[in-house]
């Protein structure tokens, strides 16, 4: 395949940065990894940064005055600075390390939600949320007697913005929605959506798990109050994610978990909470993972987020074009220009599990199921879909192999 490539982006060179991409799934069967929406692969620089940290600097942070403790603290806080710059946040006080997106959202539900909501208040979500931006609000609603409203998803797979305007009349106290759907690939027009929510005084939370890894995000420009994302989907390690928040909101919120690190002073019956962001980081954090997260961000910045976005756009356009030629295949979600590199599809009469299984026989890793968005599958009345998701290291040739794989599935079930 010698189709056009993105200018200044050498995908073959990029692939060399990821050790796992050179492995064979089984003898003679190379890996075609199309499951980056679940978790991305990790470049050598990230693996090395984490390994070097353990080999050279490992110590607990913020509490020793010996040399290693200083170095470890510096490494951890430097990583924070990198991530702050990556999303264009104004200050390190506003960037809390969490375990992942899920924990970041739960932090807001627990700490902001419980202290700012009361019985009868409305929370506005959308029908395309990942379970991690749904279940925390269901839990809170049950506990506090809140009302959950949902912006509908149109048959095309985008948010119904007319309905959104109507739902704003319920005066939701919070709007929590995803930047990009992990099933439909839909990229939501966040700026306008957030502006309208703010005009009625709602607080806004964005699930950025699928956006921050794939295109430039500027939290200040978006005017989001909270923005959550995970390192493991953006070339970083598992076990660490981040929550960005507006300073005045974070300052008024009580701590989430209690323990060491989040305190300034403790007496037997009371404590004084630490300053931001440490107030929300109880216990020994994932230090090596933070270092890896920082290295991942460095790596992405060096390649350029707009280059990565452009490369994925090329892959997505190409894949959508190829898939449109396959009879009996339906892709969920909007046309290529409104979506990122996530393609969920189904074949008439062939279950997604069987598709994924046969693909795996050719070394092609895709996901099958409801991708933690069961309500959306219920809405579209499909029990499960196959999902191919792309990232900076995927190639047009791999898209071709994926399309061949679908043909093979059809042949077996003919």
């Amino acid at each position, binding site marked *: 395949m010698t189709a056009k490539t993105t200018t200044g982006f050498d995908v073959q060179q990029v692939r060399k940065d990821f050790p796992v991409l050179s492995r064979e799934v089984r003898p003679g069967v190379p890996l075609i990894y199309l499951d980056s929406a679940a978790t991305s692969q990790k470049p050598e620089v990230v693996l090395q940064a984490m390994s070097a940290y353990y080999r050279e600097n490992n110590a607990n942070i913020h509490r020793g005055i010996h040399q290693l403790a200083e170095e470890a603290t510096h490494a951890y806080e430097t990583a924070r600075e990198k991530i702050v710059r990556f999303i264009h946040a104004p200050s390190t006080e506003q960037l809390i390390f969490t375990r992942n997106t899920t924990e970041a959202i739960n932090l807001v539900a627990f700490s902001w939600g419980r202290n700012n909501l009361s019985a009868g208040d409305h929370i506005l979500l959308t029908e395309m949320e990942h379970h991690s931006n749904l279940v925390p609000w269901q839990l809170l609603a049950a506990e506090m007697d809140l009302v959950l409203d949902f912006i509908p998803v149109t048959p095309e797979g985008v948010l119904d913005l007319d309905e959104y305007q109507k739902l704003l009349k319920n005066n939701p106290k919070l709007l929590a929605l995803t930047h990009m759907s992990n099933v439909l690939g839909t990229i939501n027009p966040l700026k306008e959506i957030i502006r309208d929510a703010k005009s009625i005084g709602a607080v806004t939370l964005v699930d950025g798990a699928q956006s921050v890894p794939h295109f430039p995000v500027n939290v200040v420009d978006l005017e989001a109050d909270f923005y959550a994302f995970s390192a493991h989907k953006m070339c970083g390690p598992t076990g660490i994610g981040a929550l960005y928040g507006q300073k005045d909101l974070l300052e008024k919120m009580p701590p989430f978990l209690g323990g060491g690190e989040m305190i300034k002073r403790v007496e037997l019956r009371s404590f004084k909470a630490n300053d931001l962001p440490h107030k929300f980081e109880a216990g020994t954090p994932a230090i090596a993972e933070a270092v890896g997260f920082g290295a991942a961000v460095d790596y992405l910045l060096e390649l350029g987020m707009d280059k990565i976005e452009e490369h994925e756009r090329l892959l997505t356009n190409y894949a959508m074009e190829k898939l449109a030629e396959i009879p009996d295949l339906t892709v969920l979600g909007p046309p290529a220009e409104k979506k990122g590199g996530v393609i969920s599809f189904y074949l008439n009469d062939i*279950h*997604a*599990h*069987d598709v994924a*299984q046969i693909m795996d*026989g050719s070394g092609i890793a895709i996901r099958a199921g409801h991708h933690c968005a069961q309500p959306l599958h219920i809405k579209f009345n499909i*029990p*499960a879909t196959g999902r191919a998701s792309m990232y900076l290291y995927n190639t047009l040739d791999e898209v071709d192999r994926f399309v061949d794989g679908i043909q*093979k599935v059809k042949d077996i*079930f003919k």
Partner: protein
Amino acid sequence: MEDFYREIIIDRYKTPHFRGELEPNDITYEDDNPACGDHIRIDVRIDENQVVTEAAFSGEGCAISLASADLLLESIIGKSLEVVKELAKEDILDMLGIELGPVRLKCALLPLKVLKAGVYGIGGDDSKE
């Protein structure tokens, strides 16, 4: 990997012998595989000796889980509930004739899980009625 999809699995998936629902029934149970959204319901009729006379399954699933359901139900017709209770993972794998990794094993075993839950649900006595 294609041999994974042995003819019997594709055949039973496309033209199952035991697909449907039985109303009334003596045993009915349904359950999901949360990992993939598969959903299976199994209905069974038994005679006065607790022997299975009819069985049917309905629901949504992949070729592995639905073929497994069809073969499983075929195997229990004419068997007593005591025998059904003894069925194990190995019996299912023998019927399918394949080896499965942990994820697909869940698909293959969902029908057995549903059947057993139903059978144990009535407790082997005639308290239901």
